[in-house]
């Protein structure tokens, strides 16, 4: 059965014009076939003697089905059952069973939250249920999320139960790998330069003690808050230390998201970001920090909390180490490390006196800034720490 058109799938043999034993030449009309378009004469493209007819008048067969065999045609093909298979008309599609309508849903209408607001809330760790929407029809917008974060509202625990956590050991090993990769990359790709300065931290420490004494425990500040704020302010004031190095060039960030290095129980360090740290009050910064630390300790960090820091602060706190040589977290371009506050000899008015001394180390990307820039940046940090009341 020949194909006579791309939409032809089968044809019905109407009449044979030949019989077994006839000699057929190329071009001879051998049969009439009925198609949707009418009856069409079929010609032979081969010459030879007809051995047998394979299809009878009235039979409908698919395109490509042999209709007749010449003497000498390949034997095994002749045994194929295909020649005698009639084709059933394609069945009309069975009517679909009636599907019962879904019951009208009850319950509260779905909240309207813009995609940008959702993405930003995830980044900040803001619980959207707690955010008031001020857009049309109560839509929660970007502005609403930002306002909420800035107001320092208490971060709620995630509503959904955490999925079954992998074992602590498993998590730790995985984290080690991630840290290893990042640190290797940093050392490989970023040309670090280091500057270090020592600061008489006594005024700041005294200020902090007075501040905390006047407040109940939940409102007290940790020294780390001063360090973070000082670095964030300096980063906002001086370009070159806040942003990312990517695609072969420095891409500064207008916002300062300070990554804070936090130790993870079981080993390893993470540095999630406090958004717009330069703009938060010390109290708000403290709350954000508390929240971050709490989530790190309970293993409830969200992946969106990583990767958004534009500069990192690493403080060794009470470990008793003078100096820290930090490693930049790619793709950032700077990191500030703080040693422990230790009683050390200091010179005041020509005399040696004991002071609370803090060593501040800046590691920066030499592709973006150089020593002079770094020196000025570090000087800013020190200046801010020397005037904690203005932080």
């Amino acid at each position, binding site marked *: 059965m020949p194909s006579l058109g791309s939409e032809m799938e089968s044809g019905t043999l109407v009449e044979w014009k030949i019989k077994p034993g006839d000699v057929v030449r190329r071009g001879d009309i051998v049969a009439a076939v009925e198609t949707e*378009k009418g009856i069409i004469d079929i010609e032979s493209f081969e010459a030879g003697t007809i051995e047998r007819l394979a299809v009878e008048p009235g039979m409908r067969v698919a395109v490509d089905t042999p209709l007749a065999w010449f003497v000498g045609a390949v034997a095994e093909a002749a045994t194929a059952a295909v020649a005698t298979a009639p084709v059933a008309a394609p069945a009309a599609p069975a009517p679909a069973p009636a599907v019962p309508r879904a019951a009208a849903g009850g319950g509260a209408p779905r909240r309207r939250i813009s995609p940008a607001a959702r993405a930003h809330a995830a980044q900040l760790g803001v619980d959207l249920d707690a955010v008031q929407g001020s857009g049309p029809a109560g839509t929660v917008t970007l502005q609403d999320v930002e306002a909420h974060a800035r107001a320092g509202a208490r971060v709620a625990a995630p509503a959904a139960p955490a999925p079954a956590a992998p074992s602590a050991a498993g998590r730790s090993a995985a984290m080690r790998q991630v840290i290893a990769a990042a640190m290797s990359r940093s050392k490989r790709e970023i040309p670090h330069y280091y500057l270090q300065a020592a600061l008489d931290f006594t005024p700041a420490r005294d200020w902090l003690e007075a501040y905390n004494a006047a407040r109940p425990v939940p409102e007290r500040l940790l020294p780390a808050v001063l360090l973070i704020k000082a670095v964030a302010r300096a980063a906002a004031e001086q370009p070159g230390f806040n942003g990312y190095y990517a695609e072969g060039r420095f891409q500064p960030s207008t916002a300062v998201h300070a990554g804070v290095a936090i130790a993870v129980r079981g080993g390893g360090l993470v540095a999630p970001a406090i958004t717009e740290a330069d703009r938060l009050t010390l109290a708000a910064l403290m709350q954000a920090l508390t929240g971050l630390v709490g989530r790190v300790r309970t293993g409830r960090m969200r992946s969106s909390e990583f990767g958004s820091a534009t500069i990192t602060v690493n403080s060794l706190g009470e470990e008793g180490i003078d100096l820290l040589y930090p490693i930049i977290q790619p793709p950032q371009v700077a990191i500030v490390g703080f040693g422990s506050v230790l009683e050390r000899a200091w010179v005041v008015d020509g005399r040696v006196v004991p002071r609370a001394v803090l060593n501040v180390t800046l590691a920066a990307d030499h592709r973006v800034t150089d020593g002079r820039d770094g020196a000025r940046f570090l000087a800013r940090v020190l200046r801010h720490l020397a005037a904690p009341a203005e932080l």
Partner: protein
Amino acid sequence: MSAAPAAPTTREHALELLGAMLRIRAFEDRCAQLYTEQKIRGFLHLYNGEEAIAVGVLGALGPADAIVATYREHGHALARGVPMGPLMAEMYGKRTGCSGGRGGSMHVFDVGRRLYGGNAIVGGGLPIAVGLALAEQYAARPGLAACFFGEGAVAEGEFHESLNLAALWKLPVLFVCENNRYAMGTALERSEAVTDIHAKAAAYGIRAAAVDGMDVLAVEAAARAEVAAIRDGAGPGFLECRTYRLRAHSMFDAQLYRDKAEVEAWRQRGPLIRFTTSCKATGLISEEDFQRLERAASEEVEAAVRFAEASEWEPVADLARHVYAERAP
């Protein structure tokens, strides 16, 4: 009908004309078979019966002339010198086809031979031919544009617009109407109030003649005369070549619109039988010559099929190539 009798010709020329027509016939018949085997897909429009027109007219053109044809253009492509291998590969849709496999049976392009399609819209090629002729005139070049179309195109607005523009601007266009009496399934008498086609061209002030399209020598003589006149700056010319389509409009056509007896009668008057008979009668060629030419044509076709079968498909990754030009023309 044109009054001038077919001029006597030499044996060499007779063999040339017969061979050319046999090549086309062999190619078209093989395509019919390949189509039933689903090697050629889509639409296939075969030229059987009309070979004298392509061979006669194209023989009168030069390499600098441009040609626009319809979807029934395999004969024109072969007569223009498009090699049979790439032409068959184009039927298959292979990347070695003359249009890169992109067009298939209806869109044969060979710009190196100034063949601009292969056009599937009835009447759609006429304005393009007018433009190609305009370029020749504008650039003061001696070429002309030959435009082939069926009598069905005469009903389209573009026919009238194009003839008028060509006459108005005296453009070097040779309009060749292949009047095979049926536009798909509609007979000429059922679609045109005036069926004398060349009279319509004359109404636009174009030199027009009707020619026996089954007589390759008559077509050739008429074409040569027109080509000379056009190159001389006499403006466009029009040849109505009266012929008959021995096969259906396309493969999937039950031919409900015409009598089998009519087709059979015309088969006896077809260009191959006609020319062979007359050449044998005058002793110009022999039966051996005919067999030899037929065999050569058949072998050439088989080689072309082998070429097409062995050729590769264009990679799907190249699908978006040539939507826009890759280089300035």
